[in-house]
C-alpha cells in the first residue's frame, strides 16, 4: 500500500465543491421533512416507544432456555442447523428429481402454477402441498399431500379442481360448461376466504377465467399477470407477454369467442415510444387497443334497451390478395343529455415524489380539471391521495362547487414520502359514502406506476377490487409518465370493470376525459362478449387480429358469470378477422384427407359466418343476445369501395402487426400502410388519424423496411 502513497489518485477528490442547492428544492425538502416530522409526532403520541423491556422482556437469545444449563449445548442446535441445511436441499432434490417422486405430485405441480380457471379449493391445500416438499421431504410424508387435500376441498369441487386445468388445452369438452359453472359459483366465496398474501400464485377470479381462454395460446396472461408475467425487453415498463392469435381451421374449430376490449392504452404508449425514438417491445403492442383508439362512424343504436348494433363488412385484405377481412364494429348508445346518470367519482391520486415531473402530476391536475368541467349538478367528486401526502384531500363534493374541487386538486404536492398508504380502502370508503343509486360509482386511479395503494399483495388487491366491483363500484386506471407497470394497470382496470388509459399529453387527456368521457363514466352495456361461428363451407381458415388477452372459452359465452369487457356511452369497438375463403388458394393448412365434409351439409347455403353478441344491461345480471348473420351482401370486392373507416382500421391493424413483427400480414411496406391510412383518413375531426399517419412515417425510420417489400 505504501507505494501508492506518493501518488494517490484519490487526492484529487478533495476540495470538490458541490453546487449550492436551489432554494426551491431546498424549501420543498424542508417542507416535506417537517410534514414527516409532524406526522411522526402524531403517531408517536399514541404509541409508546418500544425499547428494551416490553411485556415479555428482551430476548437475548433464541435458545435462552438452554443457555443457563451449559454453554456447550450450543453445539446441538448449531449442529442440527448445519445438518438440516445439508439434508433439506438434498432431500428435496431427491424428492423432486428421482423415481421416488409420486406420480400424482408431478401431475399436480403444473396445476398449481398454471393458473388454470379452476375453483379456489382454498389456499390451504396449496400450502399443504408446499410444506411437505420443503420441510419434510422424507418419502414417508409423501402421501400426506393428497390426504390433506381431500378433507379441505369441498366434495363436488374436487374433480373440478383437477379437470379444467388439463382440459384447458382441449377446448370443446362437453363437460366443461358444468365445471365452469360450478367454479364460477365457487369463486366469489373463495376469494373472500383466501387470506391476502397466502395464495399469490393462483387466486382465480371470474376475470381470470374470462381471459384464460382455453382455445388460445394466449391464456397464461390471464389476470394476475403481475405475478407470473415475463417482463419483456422494455427495461422500464412491464408488459404481460402474450403469443399472437394463431390461424384456426373453420372445419375443426369453427367458433371464436372473445370479450370486447375498450382500452386504448397500448396505442398511446406505443406512440410515445415511437415519438421518443424507440420501437416498442412486441408485447407492448396490442393491436385491438390500437384499432379501438380511433373513433369510427358506425350506425348508432336506437334505444338504451338494445345499446348497440353490430356493423359487419367483409373486404379484401390489404396485405394478402387472397384473403378477406371481416370487420365487426359497434358503437355504444349515447343517452340524451337528460338521461345521463349521476356520477360519483373518487380520484385516487399518486403523490409520490416520482410524480414531480411536468408530464405527471401537473398534467394530471389539468386533466382532472377537464373532467370536472364535464360534470353536472348531480355528480360528486372526492379526492384521495396516496403514497405521499396521503389521505382524504377532498370529501365528497358536488361537482357544482368547481372552485373548491379545482383548488383541492391544485394543492396536491408530490411529497417524497411513502408512508400512509391507506389509499385504496379510503377511496372506496368515500365512493361508498357518496354512492348514487343507478349511477356511475367509480374510483379513478391515477399513477405513474406506483401501485402501492395500501394493499401490497397484488392478488389481495385484485380480490378487493373485485369484491367492490360486485357491490357496484368500478375502477379505472389512468397511467402517467414512463415506467408504468402496464400489466398491473391492465389487470386492475379489467378486474375493476373500468378502462385503462395512458395519458401522455394534454391532448390525450382531452381525448380520454372530454371527447370520450361518456365511455369512461356511463356504462351502457356490461360483460359484452362476441362469438363468431364460421361456415366451413365458405370459410376455410380464419384468424382474429389482436384480442390475445381477451380470448374466452367457447362455453363462457353463455355463462353469465364470466366477466367480460364493458362498453361506455358512445364508445366504438372494432374487431377484425382475417378470413380465407374456401378454394382461394391462400390456405395455410392442408385439408384433411379423411372426412372433413361432414359438418358442411347442415349449413344454410352461402352465409359466411354467424355473429352472436351477449351483453348485460348495466343494472342487470342476465345477459341479452344479439344475433346477425354475415351474408354475401356485406362483401366488398375491392378495398377501394369500402368506407374510410374500414380502410383506416385495416391500416392500423397492418401497422400493429408490422410493429409486432407478426407472423402474419407483416408484409406490407410502411409506405403502403401510410397510403392506406391516408386513403381512409376521412373527416378526421379530432386529428387522430393525421397523427397516426405521421406516426407511421416515424416508425418507418425507426424500423426501416428490408429490401424486399411484399407482394
Amino acid at each position, binding site marked *: 500500500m505504501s507505494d501508492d502513497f506518493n501518488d494517490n489518485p484519490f487526492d484529487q477528490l478533495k476540495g470538490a465543491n*458541490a453546487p*449550492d442547492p436551489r432554494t426551491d428544492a431546498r424549501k420543498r425538502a424542508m417542507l*416535506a*421533512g417537517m410534514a414527516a416530522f409532524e406526522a411522526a409526532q402524531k403517531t408517536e403520541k399514541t404509541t409508546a416507544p418500544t425499547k428494551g423491556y416490553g411485556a415479555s422482556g428482551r430476548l437475548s437469545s433464541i435458545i435462552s432456555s438452554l443457555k443457563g444449563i451449559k454453554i456447550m449445548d450450543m453445539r446441538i442446535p448449531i449442529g442440527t442447523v448445519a445438518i438440516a441445511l445439508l439434508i433439506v436441499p438434498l432431500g428435496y432434490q431427491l424428492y423432486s428429481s428421482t423415481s421416488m417422486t409420486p406420480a400424482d405430485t408431478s401431475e399436480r405441480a403444473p396445476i398449481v402454477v398454471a393458473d388454470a380457471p379452476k375453483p379456489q379449493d382454498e389456499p390451504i391445500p396449496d400450502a399443504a402441498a408446499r410444506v411437505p416438499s420443503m420441510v419434510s421431504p422424507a418419502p414417508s410424508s409423501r402421501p400426506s399431500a393428497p390426504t390433506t387435500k381431500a378433507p379441505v376441498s369441498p366434495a363436488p369441487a374436487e374433480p373440478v379442481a383437477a379437470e379444467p386445468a388439463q382440459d384447458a388445452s382441449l377446448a370443446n369438452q362437453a363437460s366443461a360448461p358444468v365445471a365452469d359453472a360450478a367454479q364460477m359459483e365457487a369463486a366469489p366465496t373463495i376469494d373472500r376466504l383466501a387470506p391476502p398474501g397466502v395464495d399469490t400464485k393462483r387466486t382465480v377470479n371470474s376475470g381470470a377465467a374470462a381471459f384464460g381462454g382455453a382455445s388460445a395460446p394466449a391464456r397464461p396472461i390471464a389476470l394476475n399477470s403481475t405475478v407470473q408475467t415475463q417482463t419483456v425487453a422494455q427495461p422500464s415498463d412491464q408488459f404481460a407477454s402474450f403469443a399472437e392469435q394463431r390461424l384456426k381451421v373453420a372445419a375443426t374449430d369453427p367458433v371464436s369467442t372473445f370479450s370486447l376490449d375498450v382500452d386504448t392504452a397500448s396505442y398511446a404508449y406505443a406512440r410515445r415510444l415511437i415519438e421518443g425514438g424507440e420501437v416498442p417491445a412486441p408485447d407492448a403492442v396490442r393491436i385491438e387497443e390500437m384499432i379501438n383508439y380511433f373513433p369510427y362512424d358506425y350506425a348508432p343504436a336506437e334505444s338504451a334497451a338494445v345499446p348497440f348494433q353490430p356493423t359487419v363488412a367483409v373486404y379484401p385484405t390489404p396485405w394478402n390478395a387472397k384473403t378477406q377481412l371481416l370487420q365487426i364494429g359497434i358503437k355504444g348508445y349515447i343517452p340524451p343529455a337528460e338521461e345521463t346518470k349521476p356520477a360519483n367519482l373518487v380520484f385516487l391520486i399518486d403523490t409520490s415524489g416520482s410524480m414531480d415531473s411536468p408530464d405527471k402530476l401537473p398534467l394530471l391536475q389539468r386533466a382532472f380539471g377537464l373532467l370536472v368541467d364535464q360534470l353536472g349538478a348531480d355528480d360528486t367528486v372526492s379526492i384521495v391521495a396516496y403514497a405521499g401526502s396521503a389521505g382524504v384531500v377532498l370529501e365528497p363534493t358536488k361537482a357544482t362547487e368547481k372552485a373548491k374541487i379545482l383548488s383541492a386538486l391544485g394543492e396536491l404536492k408530490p411529497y417524497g414520502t411513502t408512508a400512509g398508504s391507506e389509499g385504496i380502502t379510503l377511496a372506496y370508503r368515500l365512493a361508498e359514502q357518496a354512492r348514487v343509486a343507478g349511477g356511475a360509482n367509480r374510483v379513478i386511479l391515477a399513477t405513474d406506476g406506483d401501485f402501492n395503494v395500501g394493499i401490497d399483495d397484488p392478488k389481495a388487491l385484485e380480490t378487493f377490487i373485485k369484491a367492490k366491483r360486485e357491490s357496484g363500484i368500478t375502477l379505472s386506471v389512468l397511467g402517467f409518465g414512463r415506467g408504468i407497470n402496464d400489466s398491473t394497470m391492465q389487470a386492475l382496470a379489467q378486474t375493476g370493470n373500468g378502462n385503462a388509459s395512458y395519458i401522455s399529453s394534454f391532448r390525450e387527456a382531452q381525448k380520454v376525459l372530454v371527447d370520450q368521457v361518456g365511455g369512461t363514466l356511463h356504462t351502457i352495456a356490461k360483460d359484452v362478449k362476441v362469438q363468431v361461428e364460421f361456415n366451413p363451407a365458405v370459410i376455410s381458415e380464419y384468424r382474429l387480429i389482436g384480442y390475445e388477452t381477451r380470448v374466452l372459452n367457447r362455453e363462457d359465452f353463455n355463462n353469465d358469470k364470466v366477466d367480460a369487457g364493458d362498453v361506455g356511452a358512445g364508445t366504438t369497438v372494432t374487431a377484425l378477422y382475417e378470413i380465407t375463403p374456401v378454394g382461394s388458394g391462400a390456405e395455410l393448412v392442408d385439408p384433411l384427407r379423411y372426412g372433413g365434409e361432414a359438418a358442411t351439409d347442415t349449413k344454410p347455403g352461402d352465409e359466411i359466418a354467424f355473429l352472436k353478441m351477449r351483453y348485460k344491461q348495466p343494472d342487470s345480471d342476465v345477459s341479452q343476445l344479439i344475433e346477425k348473420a354475415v351474408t354475401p351482401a356485406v362483401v366488398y370486392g375491392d378495398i377501394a369501395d369500402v368506407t374510410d373507416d374500414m380502410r383506416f382500421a385495416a391500416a392500423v391493424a397492418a401497422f400493429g402487426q408490422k410493429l409486432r413483427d407478426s407472423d402474419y400480414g407483416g408484409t406490407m411496406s410502411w409506405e403502403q400502410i401510410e397510403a392506406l391510412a391516408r386513403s381512409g383518413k376521412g373527416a378526421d375531426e379530432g386529428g387522430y388519424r393525421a397523427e397516426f399517419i405521421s406516426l407511421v412515417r416515424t416508425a418507418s425510420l425507426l424500423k426501416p423496411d428490408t429490401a424486399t417489400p411484399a407482394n
Partner: protein
Amino acid sequence: MHAPVMGLTAAAPIDPTAAITRALVVRAQNGDAAAFGELLEDHYDLIHRTAWKWCGNRTDAEDIAQDVCVKLGSAIAGFDGRSAFSSWVYRITLNAVRDMQRASSRRGKYASAFAEVSPEDHPADQEEAATNNQLWAAVRQLPEKQRDAVLLVYAEELSHAAAADIMGIKEATVSFHVHEARKTLRGLL
C-alpha cells in the same frame, strides 16, 4: 471551529456546534418542531452536498435530499445518540443514494432520454466540472462499499474512524475497501 490542541487539557474541548446539535436533537425528539426545522436547516447543505457528490447530478441530488429530510422527520425519534448526529445523517443519506440508484436501475435506463434537456446538452459550469471529471465518474462506478469508503475518506475528508462509524463497519475494513478501490481503479486511471 478551531479547537485548541493542547496536550494538557484533560477533558476534550467542547465543540460548540456539536453541543448545539445535540441540544436540538433532544428538543426535536421531545416533539419540538422548531428545533427539528433548525436541524434540517443546518444539515440540508451537508445532505445535498453528499448526495451530489455521490450521484453527480442535480435532480437526483435534490430528490435524495428531500427523501432524507422526510426520513429524518420520521426517524429522529429513534436516533439513539450512540454515534454523532452528522454520522447518522450521512448514513441515512448514503442509504437513500443506494435506494434511489437501485430503483432507477430498475426503472429504466432510457428515462434520461426523455428529460427535456439531457445532461450532455447542458454546459457544465465550473463547479459541476469539478465533480464530473473522469476520476469522479470512475469512483461513482465502483461497488457501493468501495465507493462509499473512498468518497467519505477523500471527498468528505473524514477520518477512517468516522467513515467506519458511518458505514457501520470496522476501521480496518474501511482501509481495505479503499485499498480495493485503488486496485479496481488502477486499470482505469
